[in-house]
């Protein structure tokens, strides 16, 4: 004990020393003599203080001994109390064991029943967490979780109200999966803004809003699907959401509790426009060629129909009219009525030869386009395949999805090529038929007409 005191005193002394030294330094001695004087004074005051402290410590020593005695007495008392409490604890534990045994005995078959109740509540809780009906009735699983916690603790039993509420929740879930209802809920848009909307729930299958947008439900929050299924599906949804009665057709996806894989597949299916873009540059080129061929065919059709009508009216009239090919050929005879037959035949075939290219113009181009369009499609498909297989050499064939997507896109150009070729072939046939009819008339019938004409003139 005394050693400790000495140590403490030494520590205190060093503290005082260092303090006074810095105080001396702070006074800023003007000369060495003055400094010496300061040091001397300091020594004198420190020695005085130390003596006073020593006297104080020796006086305290008697007090400290008395305090130690008091503390020892207190410890003895506490130890006795501890022994007493320990004995009581043992006694109580025996009592608890006996009581628990009694509880088990009294519960009997009820234990099994509560086990079933716990597992049923657990199943229901996990079902409710993913059920779309929870979007309408939030917080149902909180009660079930509390109930399960209560039942798994050893000292509490469920009340009859709680057991009946489990029953009620089960019945409500069964009922809600079979109805189509509307309710208001907060929905997050794809941009992330939350706003209240009127939501339509179709059983436990789909959630749509009144505009026909499909919603997804995930861990308590509703959000609009960023990409909606195309075509009739959203229309059906809107019709159903705005219907007041009667029967409405609506597609549900039974493959999953929330949306499901079929809906996902429908959403992932590219639209017609996206498919067209999959064709890439070759696809655009084919489309351009197709539009050109279509316009060319229409233009030739209009021109040839007009020429055909004029030729028909020329066939009925006696006078050669030079607004049509037949009239221009007949005019050769009309201008030189005295020409001998051999020269006339030569001149006529010359005139026909002059008219034919005008009638047939553009037809060869149409035929070439009809032949080239499928080849262009094939080109696009092959280049698409090359790109796909290059991707396989880099990334490996581990992912059939990526490969299948590439091939599916590559085949689009073949479809485009065929879609251009088939109508072009048909149009070419029709337009060519019109051209050939006029050419046949020019080529094989003009001489006959002239002959008929001269015969008629001779007779009259």
């Amino acid at each position, binding site marked *: 004990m005394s050693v400790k005191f000495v140590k403490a005193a030494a520590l205190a002394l060093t503290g005082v020393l260092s303090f006074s030294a810095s105080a001396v330094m702070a006074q800023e001695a003007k000369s060495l003599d003055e400094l010496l004087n300061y040091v001397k004074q300091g020594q004198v005051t420190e020695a005085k203080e130390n003596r006073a402290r020593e006297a104080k410590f020796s006086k305290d020593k008697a007090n400290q001994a008395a305090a130690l005695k008091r503390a020892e007495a207190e410890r003895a008392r506490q130890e006795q109390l501890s022994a007493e409490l320990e004995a009581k604890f043992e006694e109580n534990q025996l009592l608890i064991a006996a009581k628990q045994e009694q509880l088990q005995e009294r519960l009997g078959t009820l234990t099994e029943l509560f086990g079933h109740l716990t597992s049923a509540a657990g199943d229901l809780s996990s079902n409710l967490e993913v059920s779309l009906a929870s979007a309408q009735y939030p917080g149902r699983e909180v009660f079930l979780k509390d109930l399960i916690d209560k039942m798994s603790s050893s000292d509490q039993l469920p009340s009859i109200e709680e057991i009946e509420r489990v029953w009620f929740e089960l019945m409500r879930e069964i009922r809600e999966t079979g109805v189509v209802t509307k309710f208001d809920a907060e929905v997050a848009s794809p941009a992330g803004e939350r706003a209240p909307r009127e939501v339509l729930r179709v059983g436990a299958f789909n959630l749509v809003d009144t505009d026909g947008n499909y919603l997804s439900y995930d861990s308590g929050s509703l959000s609009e699907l960023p990409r909606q299924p195309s075509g009739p599906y959203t229309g059906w949804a809107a019709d159903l959401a705005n219907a007041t009665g009667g029967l409405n057709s609506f597609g549900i996806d039974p493959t999953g509790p929330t949306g499901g894989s079929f809906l996902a597949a429908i959403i992932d299916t590219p639209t017609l426009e996206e498919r067209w873009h999959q064709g890439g540059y070759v696809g655009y080129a084919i489309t351009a060629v197709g539009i050109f061929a279509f316009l060319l065919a229409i233009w030739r059709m209009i021109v040839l129909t007009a020429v055909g009508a004029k030729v028909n009216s020329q066939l009925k009239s006696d006078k050669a009219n030079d607004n049509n090919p037949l009239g221009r050929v007949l005019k050769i005879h009309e201008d030189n009525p005295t020409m001998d037959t051999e020269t006339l035949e030569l001149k006529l075939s010359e005139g026909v030869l002059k008219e034919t290219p005008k009638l047939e113009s553009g037809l060869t181009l149409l035929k070439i386009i009809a032949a080239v369009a499928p080849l262009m499609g094939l080109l696009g498909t092959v280049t698409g395949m090359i790109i796909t297989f290059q991707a396989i050499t880099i990334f490996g064939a581990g992912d059939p999805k990526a490969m299948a997507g590439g091939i599916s896109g590559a085949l689009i150009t073949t479809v485009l090529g065929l879609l251009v070729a088939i109508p072009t072939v048909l149009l070419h046939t029709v337009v060519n038929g019109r051209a050939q009819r006029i050419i046949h008339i020019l080529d094989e*019938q003009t001489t006959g007409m002239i002959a008929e004409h001269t015969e008629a003139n001779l007779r009259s």
Partner: protein
Amino acid sequence: MGDLIEVLLGFMDKGGDVLWLIAALLFVMWTLIFERFWYFQMGWKKDVAQVIAKWEGRPERKSWEAFQIRQMMISQSRMQINRNLPVIKTLVALCPLLGLLGTVTGMIEVFNIMAVTGGGDAKSMAGGVQQATIPTMAGMVAALSGVFANTYVTRIAQREGEFLQDNLTTDH
């Protein structure tokens, strides 16, 4: 009868939209073919009799004029005989092309399903395979039926043309 329509509609559904195109094409093709048969059975006899009567009614059939008029008559009749034959021929050629179109769209469907499901689901791909194979078969059958009819009609047209040419004799 109702069952038959149902079976037919089921078949069309399996084959996809291209099958309807092939059906429309087939309908147009056979309409034109029947029109030709009808003409050769009904109208042609009268027409050829008229042409021959007109030719026989001429005072002389030896001059240059007579020869040119004969040419013209034959040409006009040929135009009657050969009407729609090129269109029929084209339609026959288009049938397999449409079948090919169906095949390619079906294959796109197959690969698309593969891209979504990862290729594990053979059942869902079977739908696309059906779409790919049925139009090809339908196109082939349509083309085959058309080929026979087209050949037959073309042969009739050729024979009747020659018959007319033989009957417009230059001298008796």
